[in-house]
């Protein structure tokens, strides 16, 4: 690992000031950053340690009923927070469906939001990768690309955003609070991530020095608490990235869907809100036929970026599965295998 300067920030203001110097990155849980640094694909000059800043590790309910989660809250603490479990259960399920218990104990909300979009060619410095260095090309295009993007990709980059947690956040229309050199601002999850363009790598809308200080779950999201699920398909039952995943949240009355929220994971360089599919569901009968139509709408614009056409069908299936499971009701207790299609309870079979 390349050497770097280390600075411990005492406040958000000093952190932002220190990180405004080019070559600086924030250090929190370290679980993604140190991995990338050991691989040599991130070589920062300076780490700004934000773990000691007072007040960033709180979870509190705002005056408008929203839930504000500080950026330094650890994933495991958030996942077992009673308010989150009661009001935003799909977010808790997605958190517990990601990584391992050890990683969740260290990883933070802000770090998870800032997880690097990546693929194995990004990690391999002997491969061409536009995401690592624009202009190199993309070896994934002619490589092992069975798990790459099927939505929102260009030939510049076909990697996917790996987070589980961000998928229900996209469905909920969650926001992040950011403090930067120019002051405070709020961004929706949808606006936080940028898709690849021609000659433009995927990334985030944040600039040098911008620090995510909190995540805001809107109070309106609570209306889905009774019917909310996150489900993912992966190579092994636990501790693996999603091949595809889906968050589904429903309000149902008199057999009809009053409101629906949907997002997909593992399909694009950002958590993918499926607004067209939501529109298909709103007012429709709560039935498998409706879910199938919604899934078709969600993937209508999908195209394989390589040997991954199967992901389009898999994404439809996991979306239908998540919708059926959400319609059956949020389980009273977190499933033993969160986010899994196995042992997911009789409603999902």
């Amino acid at each position, binding site marked *: 690992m390349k050497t770097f300067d280390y600075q411990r920030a005492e406040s958000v203001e000093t952190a932002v000031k220190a990180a405004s110097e080019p070559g600086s990155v924030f250090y929190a849980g370290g679980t993604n950053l140190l991995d990338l640094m050991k691989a040599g694909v991130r070589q920062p000059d300076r*780490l700004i*340690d934000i*773990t000691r800043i007072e007040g960033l590790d709180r979870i509190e309910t705002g005056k408008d009923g929203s839930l504000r989660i500080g950026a330094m809250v650890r994933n495991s603490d958030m996942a077992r927070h009673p308010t989150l479990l009661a009001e935003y259960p799909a977010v808790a399920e997605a958190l517990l469906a990601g990584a391992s*218990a*050890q990683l969740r*104990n260290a990883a933070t909300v802000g770090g998870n939001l800032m997880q690097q979009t990546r693929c194995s060619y990004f990690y391999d410095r002997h491969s061409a990768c536009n995401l690592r260095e624009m202009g190199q090309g993309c070896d994934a295009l002619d490589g092992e690309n069975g798990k790459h993007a099927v939505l929102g990709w260009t030939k510049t980059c076909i990697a996917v955003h790996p987070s589980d947690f961000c998928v229900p956040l996209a469905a909920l229309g969650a926001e992040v609070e950011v403090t930067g050199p120019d002051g405070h601002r709020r961004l929706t999850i949808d606006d936080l991530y940028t898709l690849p363009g021609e000659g433009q790598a995927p990334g985030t809308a944040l600039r040098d020095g911008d620090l995510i200080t909190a995540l805001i779950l809107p109070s309106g999201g609570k209306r889905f608490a009774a019917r909310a699920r996150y489900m993912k398909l992966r190579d092994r039952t*636990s501790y693996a990235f999603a091949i595809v995943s889906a968050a589904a949240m429903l309000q149902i009355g008199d057999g009809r869907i009053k409101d629906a929220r949907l997002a997909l994971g593992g399909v694009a360089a950002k958590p993918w809100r499926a607004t067209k599919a939501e529109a298909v569901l709103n007012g429709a009968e709560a039935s498998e036929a409706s879910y199938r139509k919604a899934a078709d709408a969600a993937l209508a614009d999908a195209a394989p970026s390589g040997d991954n056409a199967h992901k389009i069908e898999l994404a439809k299936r996991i979306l239908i599965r998540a919708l059926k499971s959400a319609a059956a009701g949020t389980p009273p207790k977190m499933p*033993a*295998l969160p986010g899994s299609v196995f042992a997911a309870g009789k409603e999902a079979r």
Partner: protein
Amino acid sequence: MALRISLKINGKMHELALEDARPTLLDVLRERIGLTGTKKGCDRGQCGACTVLVDGRRVNSCLSLAVSLEGADITTVEGLADGETLHPVQAAFIENDGFQCGYCTPGQIMSAVGFISERDGHATAEEIREGMSGNLCRCGAYAGIQDAVMDAQLRMSNEGKS
């Protein structure tokens, strides 16, 4: 410029001077303190062999910068036994054949200690498999590991009652 840090490791304070900020907790434990029970497997957070408790929580020590942990309370596998008396999780691993080559075992044991402390009530076999999924065993001793964790939680709750 040396970075000075203090860590409490298995109940004992250690003052350290690091040449720079790069050493992970894993490397400090093994190379500086001489506690080689904590193992380096993948060194990338994928295998769990380096699992230790930091302020009572299980983490991958390979993905933690030591300098960031200033003042933390660390427990490694060397800190579990009380003299000659093994920790209930250690004893359960031996009696349930929870290992073969033993390389992943310190990480498995520390992860199991963390897992049991995180829970209210006993875990099912399925919950144990999910909760221990961050620890890989190349020998495939998973059946014994699951039995050991199941047994250990019973031993610990019985101890708590006595």
